[in-house]
């Protein structure tokens, strides 16, 4: 029983890290994704093409690879450019915080790409008539987007968004590849040091419970927006 509690408390610490990564990724990648979706819909062709390519790369390569790239590539580049100034292969130093930040940056960029496509689908599904109605009432494009279109977009994209956000909490486990002490890392710790397998399943239960909470939350939001049809 004492062992069980010790496992749980250590896993809880890992979960807090995973949750923090999850939350911060959402906070930064949602607005960034919206901005990227505007770029992929831009009338200015070079910008549009550039961002289509960025989205293609970000969605077309494994997230784990991108985590490695963010963590190691700056150091490598520095080594190529100024070999004499080389202080090692890792530009992010090896403290926990910097590892966490490297993972966060990778997650934010990667998820912004996915979110941008969901936003784009939602924005393009809103009828032109909504924009025109706003325009003839003398509203600016900005007002039309934020006061009229956005909530309709949100209502429409909640199902694909909830899918993506549920994937995100599980993807945080990839951060253990660069030594972020998240949930899976902590569970593996028991396997490596104590030869215990079952903490991994407890870790699974942590994810499962959290996804359950998310599912309920999304259902609530969906219900809340049920009062109108769009």
């Amino acid at each position, binding site marked *: 029983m004492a062992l069980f509690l010790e496992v749980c408390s250590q896993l809880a610490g890992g979960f807090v890290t995973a949750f923090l990564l999850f939350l911060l990724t959402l906070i930064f990648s949602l607005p960034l994704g919206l901005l990227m979706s505007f770029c992929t819909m831009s009338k200015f062709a070079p910008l549009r093409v550039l961002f289509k390519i960025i989205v293609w790369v970000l969605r077309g390569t494994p997230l784990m690879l991108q985590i490695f790239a963010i963590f190691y590539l700056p150091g490598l580049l520095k080594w190529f450019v100024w070999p004499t100034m080389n202080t090692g292969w890792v530009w992010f130093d090896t403290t926990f915080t910097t590892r966490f930040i490297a993972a966060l940056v990778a997650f934010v960029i990667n998820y912004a790409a996915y979110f941008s496509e969901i936003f784009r689908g939602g924005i393009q599904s809103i009828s032109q008539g909504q924009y*025109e*109605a706003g325009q*003839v*009432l003398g*509203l600016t494009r900005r*007002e039309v987007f934020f006061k009229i279109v956005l*909530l309709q977009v949100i209502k429409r994209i909640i199902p694909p968004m909830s899918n993506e956000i549920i994937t995100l909490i599980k993807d945080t486990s990839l951060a253990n590849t660069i030594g972020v002490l998240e949930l899976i890392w902590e569970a593996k710790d028991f396997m490596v040091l104590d030869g215990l397998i079952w903490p991994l399943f407890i870790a699974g239960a942590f994810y499962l419970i959290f996804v359950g909470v998310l599912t309920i939350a999304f259902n609530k939001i969906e219900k809340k927006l049920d*009062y109108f049809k769009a």
Partner: protein
Amino acid sequence: MSILEVKDLRKRFGNNEVLKGIDLTLEKGEVLAVIGSSGGGKTTFLRCLNFLEKADSGEIVVNGNTVYRAVSGKEPEILPSAQLSFGLVFQQFNLFPQYSVKENLMLAPRLRAKRKDSAVPYKEALELIGKRADELLATVGLTEKADAYPCQLSGGQQQRVAIARALMLSPDILCFDEPTSALDPELTGEVLRVIRSLKNSERTMIIVTHEMEFARNVADKVIFISEGMIEEQGTPEEVFGSPKSEKTRAFLRSDS
């Protein structure tokens, strides 16, 4: 001075010249009905008046002020106040689904009152806006639906809300783009009655419509647009009673 003067308005989409020079004068309080077969350019004409399309060339003069002037191949000049000279009621209503009926009416005036250059304090403005919304809802007979959402209303009711919404900013000229074409036949009556009730010496209206009976009864002036040009214009008696153009006669025959 005429409330509206349109001079040689032209518009093309690619190779398709949709408006081939529309000239028009309208006096304050007049109701103009625009008729014509689909594809003839009447909706494009209305959309150009509301700046949803930018005419390639021509002028739009409201109350003696040139609010829009375009010369072929150049960026058109639009007066900042131009948009609010016109109001538009759409065929598909285009109400904002997430807002209640009253909020639909109040949204645009409210956002305008919030802007920095607004002369009246926001709180005072808000009160006036609310009052005006109540008045207009009464005008279109929907006072009891003030808190309903668009999805709870029939098409006819939605269109009446759209009319009230367009009136909130007191446009000089209120335009209707086939206001009953998207409605079930039994719902057109209520909308047409509301439009008719709006007619007074102060309110100028342009109505693109397929309802010939309505055009005949309500309009002071009728224009028949065909292939991007005004083929015939005059009083309803002239256009419907004794059309001069063969095209007009053919159109009116096919319609009845």
